[in-house]
């Protein structure tokens, strides 16, 4: 839950100007809606690597891993558990 809320807080503050509604669900598509843009993905990756001490490799940089808060959470949790 802590991972999920940390990611949610970051997305809600970092991409505030791209979010058109007051709140978004954990299954809201961040890519289709344009919340995470081409520069935003860099900020997100930097944040995830620093906050959770994980390294995300090139072959993991799939849009599918970053499309919703839940998908990002489960991706990060897998990374943490495999350390």
């Amino acid at each position, binding site marked *: 839950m802590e991972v999920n809320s940390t990611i949610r807080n970051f997305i809600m503050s970092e991409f505030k100007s791209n979010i058109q509604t007051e709140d978004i669900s954990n299954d809201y598509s961040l890519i289709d809606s*344009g919340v*995470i843009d*081409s*520069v935003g993905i*860099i900020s997100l990756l*930097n944040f995830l690597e620093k906050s959770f001490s994980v390294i995300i490799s*090139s072959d993991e940089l*799939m849009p599918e891993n*970053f*499309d919703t808060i839940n998908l990002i959470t489960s991706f990060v949790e897998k990374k943490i558990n495999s350390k």
Partner: protein
Amino acid sequence: MEEIIKFSRKELNGGITQDYVNGNFPIEKWKKCASMKILALPFPEGYSGCNADILTTAVALKALSYGCKDAGLVHAVATQILCGLQILHFGSEKQKLKYLPGICNGDMVAAQAITEPSSGSDAFSMQMKAINDGENWVLNGTKIFITNGPIADIAIVFGITDKKKRTLGGISCFIVEKDFEGFSRSKPFDKMGLRTLQNGELVFDNCIVSENNILGNIGQGVIIFNESMEYEKILYPAIHLGTMERLFDISKKYSTTRLSFGQYISKYQQISNKIVDMKINIELGNLILYKSALCKDKGKRVNLESSITKLFVSESLKKTCLEAIQIHGGYGFMTDYEIEKDLRDSIASTIYSGSSEIQYNLISRLIGL
């Protein structure tokens, strides 16, 4: 690195003026760079590479640029390496075996095609379409200013595969070979600098690309682009720093041998300050370059560091070229001294690979502003 400087001075500096005036690509010198294994530096031995890390590759390119006065050739070499790195990091094993040996030995010239007539720094407003016809991908659109484009045997091409998904997830990357149906290359453009570097238009008119030539996965284009830009913003500044160090050395030497009003001009603070500024920019540029390269070698993300490197070094390069001309006075303005050529070559450095204005925007976003 002394070997690369010696090699560059001996093998790469003859006949530059003629090639420069005519805008010819120095193919024989390209082959010499390949024989010296410079094109092969960061690639694994299994693909005919040298297994060098990014720091070593950057330092080697800096040495090449210090010794070789043809910045166009050096840029062509760096572009080749950048394209190879994208295939190395995102390509299938089959693609690596097919393309990397040719990239390493110089038999295959590679280009990266992102910019379009109506989208430069705003790269992802591209119009290039790639539509799946059930069997293959059909590419339609035009890419412009593509480095190595007119002589490219392969091009790494970015196009929209899903308009609804916008940039992230909607852009994909393809490896297009020169003989693919519907693909054509323009003649090289005439430019104010980097004249031996071949830049031109690539046209895709119902160009057929098979599934085997998708680089990475469908929708991964922006991620490939971001990763590639990190390398680009390390390797191009490395070659700029080589030029800056050469200009520093010749300016220092000139200032300590040129007499004016009875003393060497280096004794005047107006001149010595310029040379000191050159030195400061070189030292600081090297530090941020090495930091970026070392972090990259450790598998860290270096968007922030590489953007700072690119911005600082490319702006410093232009200043260094201008000051070198000023220090040399009238001689600096003459083509025989070749410093004015370095200035013309430097102008594009704050435009390509994301202009200085874009680097400011990126850095601002990345530091949370």
